[in-house]
């Protein structure tokens, strides 16, 4: 362009020359179509390349020193675990009151010389709090008027005070179990928990206190852990709620309890704390029926809104599991991608390309086999999916709300645990692994801060850091402002009078549509007050009210939305979408990434259907792509497509949408806000542009 300008110096030379950067900007704006195509393609390709760009994990914090000490967990502890397991199964079978196990656990904990208490709470349903996103809700002390015995949940908690420690920090170990329906694997996980406690109660190296929470997950493990944490970080002054029902429900049976329990009996409900939490491990055992060649460990780490624990915590668990205990480590993967042939094809292509690239420069560590790529893609997809959903994948999510790094370690034995040998070997391995992880965290002087907090995992030992995955996203949304500027300037240039203020009308339209979306997002609060029962009735009511409001908005807006012309409308909409996406990328990157893949092409491509274009083929292409994108980007449609793609069971009910939305808001997921505040208005505006009645001069631009 500069060269072109230079060509006719006689005319342009009189104007003072603008700065280089402005000229570059102008160049980009002038070629916005090309730029947007290139950027979109590059962004999507770079995104697909992420499994190739993943690095091997390494333990960043030197103080952790995983596996540097020999495990002390021995057959003695295995015996302890077995004993408790048997006791639980015997007693649990005898009395299924839900309290028996907690009592039993407390007896065991006290016998080992640790402090112990019961934590008691009343489970509450998650409600829709329109204003409580991102804020921890520590209030709602609305106890039921007549709490019955069954409505209480009793957790047994054990605390080991580090012998020479100053008690400033703690490591938390959680073993969820279901007190109503205690399975064998629940009992085994409690056994492991206890054996760890019994081991740690007499080790000399402990510097941080250890808290063991045996969480009764009768009403969901997350709620139990969360309420315990809430009490830990809140004013749970001793004996709050408990006294009322104490005498009625839990009569202390003094005759059969031990002497020292009697001594401490009076304050067994007093909440005890043990310093700031350094890390937490949630321990689970899953007894699988089918045989595998090795015991395996699944790591779950995603907390609410895509927050992850420090990568080092996953690293030490992985390192110890693989290199010390010989377990197979798994992290979640989406099966669809493992089986999809196009991913396989892509993998093979990439394999060839990377080998070629390696010939060019052997320093490039890009070599990836097709199988690795497929597995990496499937794992990455699940990593992104769970982060984007914003719903924690386990009770470890509750810890993240208090800035505590936590992971769930789910162990599954190679064959059924009923086999004595299998069980002993399994207990020894898991016990040693947990001991190792606790020992590593115990070594830690500072809190976890060395390694990454923002990453995707593509394999248990491979990660994509924020520095890499931001690039595809950046490239993907880069054309948005350019296209907006191009549309704006082209419109401004062509229009003659009062054109410079016309965009305000477009902005008004965009603003009102966003306002409508915001109201729609708050509608469930009103709907929940209505006497509706089924989820499908909720969905239809929600949709009906939202559409009504939208129509009303359009009645108000009709004239101005026609007036301003679709270019301006599109330009302002794109700006709003760009702002929304970049904000969302800070809050929950994965949501923004998935959203951007849908929204950005739609925003860039959308054109009025009636717009005159040269060539039937081009017009048809434009129409179909517009239509396809509009369908795909509509959140419910996207959900349906995802559901059918990823092989969910057949029949689809409209009630699912309500349930889905309910999950999102009950977990305070920012994805809900993104969908309704950014994605939905953007989609509505695109639809508006698509159906734009192209009359008047503006359409000829």
């Amino acid at each position: 362009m500069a060269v072109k300008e230079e060509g006719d110096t006689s005319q342009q030379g009189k104007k003072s020359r603008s700065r280089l950067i402005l000229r570059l900007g102008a160049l980009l704006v002038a070629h916005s179509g090309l730029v947007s195509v290139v950027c979109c393609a590059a962004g999507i390709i770079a995104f697909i390349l992420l499994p190739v760009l993943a690095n091997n994990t390494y333990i960043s914090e030197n103080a952790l020193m995983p596996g540097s000490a020999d495990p002390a967990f021995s057959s003695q502890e295995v015996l302890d675990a077995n004993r408790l397991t048997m006791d639980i199964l015997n007693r649990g079978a005898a009395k299924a009151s839900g309290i028996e196990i907690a009592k039993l656990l407390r007896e065991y904990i006290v016998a080992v010389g640790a402090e112990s208490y019961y934590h008691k709470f009343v489970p509450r349903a998650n409600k829709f709090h329109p204003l409580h996103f991102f804020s921890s809700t520590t209030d709602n002390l609305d106890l039921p008027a007549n709490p019955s015995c069954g409505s209480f949940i009793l957790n047994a908690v054990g605390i080991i005070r580090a012998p020479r420690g100053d008690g400033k920090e703690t490591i938390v170990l959680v073993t969820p179990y279901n007190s109503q329906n205690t399975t064998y694997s629940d009992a085994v996980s409690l056994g492991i928990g206890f054996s760890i406690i019994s081991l740690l109660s007499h080790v000399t190296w402990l510097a941080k206190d250890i808290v063991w929470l045996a969480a009764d997950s009768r009403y969901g493990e997350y709620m139990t852990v969360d309420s315990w944490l809430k009490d830990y970080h809140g004013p749970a002054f001793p004996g709050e709620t408990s006294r009322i029902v104490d005498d009625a429900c839990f009569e202390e049976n003094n005759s059969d309890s031990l002497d020292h329990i009697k001594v401490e009996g009076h304050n067994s409900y007093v909440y005890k704390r043990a310093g700031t939490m350094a890390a937490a491990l949630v321990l689970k055992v899953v007894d699988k029926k089918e045989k595998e060649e090795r015991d395996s460990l699944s790591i779950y780490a995603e907390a609410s809104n895509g927050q992850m624990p420090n990568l080092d915590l996953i690293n030490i668990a992985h390192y110890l599991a693989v290199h010390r205990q010989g377990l197979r480590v798994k992290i979640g993967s989406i099966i669809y991608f493992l089986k999809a042939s196009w991913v396989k094809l892509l993998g093979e292509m990439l394999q060839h390309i990377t080998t070629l690239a390696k010939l060019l420069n052997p320093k490039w560590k890009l070599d990836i086999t097709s199988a690795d790529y497929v597995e990496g893609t499937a794992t990455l997809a699940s990593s992104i999916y769970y982060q984007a959903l914003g719903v924690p994948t386990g009770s470890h999510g509750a810890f993240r709300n208090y800035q505590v790094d936590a992971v769930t370690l789910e162990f599954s034995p190679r064959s059924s645990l009923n086999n004595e040998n299998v069980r002993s070997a399994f207990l020894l391995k898991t016990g040693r692994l947990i001991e190792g992880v606790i020992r590593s965290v115990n070594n830690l002087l500072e809190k976890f801060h060395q390694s990454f907090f923002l990453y995707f995992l593509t394999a248990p030992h491979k990660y994509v850091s924020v520095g890499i995955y931001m690039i595809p996203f950046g490239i993907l949304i880069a054309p948005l402002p350019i296209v907006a500027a191009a549309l704006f300037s082209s419109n401004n240039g062509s229009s003659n009078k009062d054109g410079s203020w016309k965009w305000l009308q477009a902005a008004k339209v965009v603003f009102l549509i966003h306002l409508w979306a915001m109201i729609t997002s708050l509608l469930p609060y009103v709907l929940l007050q209505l006497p509706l029962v089924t989820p499908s009735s909720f969905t239809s009511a929600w949709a009906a009210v939202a559409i009504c409001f939208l129509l009303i908005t359009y009645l108000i807006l009709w004239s101005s939305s026609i007036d301003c012309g679709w270019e301006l409308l599109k330009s302002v909409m794109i700006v709003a979408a760009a702002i929304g996406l970049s904000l969302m990328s800070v809050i929950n990157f994965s949501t923004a990434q998935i959203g951007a893949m849908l929204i950005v092409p739609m925003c860039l491509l959308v054109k009025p259907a009636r717009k005159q274009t040269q060539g039937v083929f081009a017009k048809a292409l434009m129409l179909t792509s517009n239509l396809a994108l509009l369908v795909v980007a509509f959140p419910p449609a996207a959900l349906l497509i995802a559901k059918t793609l990823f092989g969910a069971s057949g029949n689809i009910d409209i009630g699912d949408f309500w349930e889905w939305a309910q999950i999102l808001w009950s977990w305070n997921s920012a994805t809900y806000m993104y969908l309704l505040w950014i994605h939905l208005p953007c989609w509505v505006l695109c639809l508006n542009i698509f159906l734009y009645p192209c009359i008047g001069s503006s359409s000829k631009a």
Partner: protein
Amino acid sequence: MAALCRRFTGFHFLLVLVSLSISSLVFGDWIGDDEGEQFTEELLLKPLPDRKVLAHFHFQSTAHPSPDSGHHHHLFPKAIAQLVQKFQIRDLELSFTQGRWNYENWGGSDPISSTNAKPPGVELWATFNVPVVEIDTTWKNLTHALSGLFCSSINFLESSTSYTTPSFVFGLNVSNIRYGALPREAVCTENLTPWLKLLPCRDKAGLATLLDRPSIYKGYYHSQKLRLTSTKLSGIILEQTLTIVLQPNIQRNSAHSLLDGAIQPSWSISSMFKRNLTGSCVLARTSRILVELEKNIVSKLEELGHGGSWSNSLLDLSPNPFRVIKEVNPFPEESNSILFEYVNSKEYEPLDVGIKWKLPFVWSSPHAPFHASRFLMGSGTERGSIAISLQSTKSDEYFRSKSNECRMQAVVFQVVPWYVKVYYHTLQIFIDQKLQNLSDVIEKIRVTPSEDKKLPGTLELVLGYPCTVQSVALTLDFDKGFLHIHEYPPDANQGFDIPSALVTFPNLHSSRIYIGDDSSVHSPLLLKFQEKNVVLSYTEVLLVPFTTPDFSMPYNVITFTCTVLALYFGSLLNVLRRRIGEEERLMRSKDATKRGLIPLIVSKITSKLRGMPRSKPLLIFAVVLSVLFHYIVN
């Protein structure tokens, strides 16, 4: 009796003298006679309910004020005497502690716990005999002197952000007291060695020989304390105490046996300390070992029908004690603790005091009426609150002794570093979970708000509430300050410590009265037990997580700032230098000839290329490309 005692020890000293060289004869000269300086060593052993044993070493040196002795001392450590003289110290208490005192299991209202349970790390307080204006400088100098003396970083207490002036907590109505605590100070042998050097026999003879480093640092609690009192009348009294809680070796066969038989582990001095005790420090006036049985054990013994016996069906104390000392307390129907006294004098035969348990037996230690604990509330790195909770332990003794109308007093003393910005107006007090009107509960309050980088915040509070209360809780909201990069301590990513709060119960005392204690037992330790000590307990140290910068950041900041500065100055100069009108005129005149840089280059290249043969531009292009490619690849 005292005379007898003296003769007794004198006799042994005679033996010692015979066996020792002539040099010790010189010492022996004044040991018996000189009343000016004295040294005593005592050791109290006490079984604890949770299978542990408390060992409390008590060494006391006194120097009478005698003008003729001048700067010279025979027994009294010169370093301490000089310290007292130089800084005009009236009272001083310095403690180094590792581990936490377990108030639930190890007792909360006996003299040991109220005087020797200390917060983790270093705690120092001192009162001075100097004019008020000089106190701060004296304190600063003192911290440096002590830090040199004890190989520790007490000098960190020099900064005005780390010490404070409590007004009524220590019961001393003085303005010349200073108090400071370093919760993060690690305590190890390097602190013990200088402390032992203050003893006349060091750890070469006497009770201090028991201090085998590996075994005492393996314990569950370790607190070495130095207490100085100096008056014109009595001279300087230096008490050095070492309180340790040890776990006797137990055969841990299986947890099942732990569940079934709660038999206490048997122990003896040699098994716990891995050393034998042979002979006393010759310079010590008395050297004795006391074994205490708590009143709950004694009541059990009485139940079994053997009151003060040391060998019975429950336990076996060996060897036979020299004397039995019984406590008297105001409630005659209750049983009291018993002390068994051993005199450590035999040089050739090790004195191996120990208890052998025969029956499983569980008892509990006397609790303070309220158990104090402190915790942090809230989450996030912006704000939070501190809560101090007092939970009734329902200790029967106390409630039986008082009528229903009684009122409990509790003094809370809390020092908070300045970067934890406590809002004292947010103080809330809950009694039995009910929010109270502050004026109903608070009897006296003194708040010194913190001042950034100058003063820590101090809260002193006297609470009054009925004795029957189950729980009392105080909450204070705070903001976490935002610190300068150089204000972060080492290991800032761990978080910041809030020193222990101190909760005292001024109307409760932990004094004990012993039968037959006139002058018969001249034991500084027992005298100490008979003092009226207020029952107190320290709370946990808190760790407040702070936002921390990336400490490698300064480099980035420097480069970034430099870039910004360069850009700023560059454009500023550009603007200042420019004359727009002139430029436009120039441009207009030169426009026909002058070209932009890029077009100029482009046109030059094209003109050159035009002159070249056809193959050359391709070659150049290829060369440029390959160079570029190589650059990118590497």
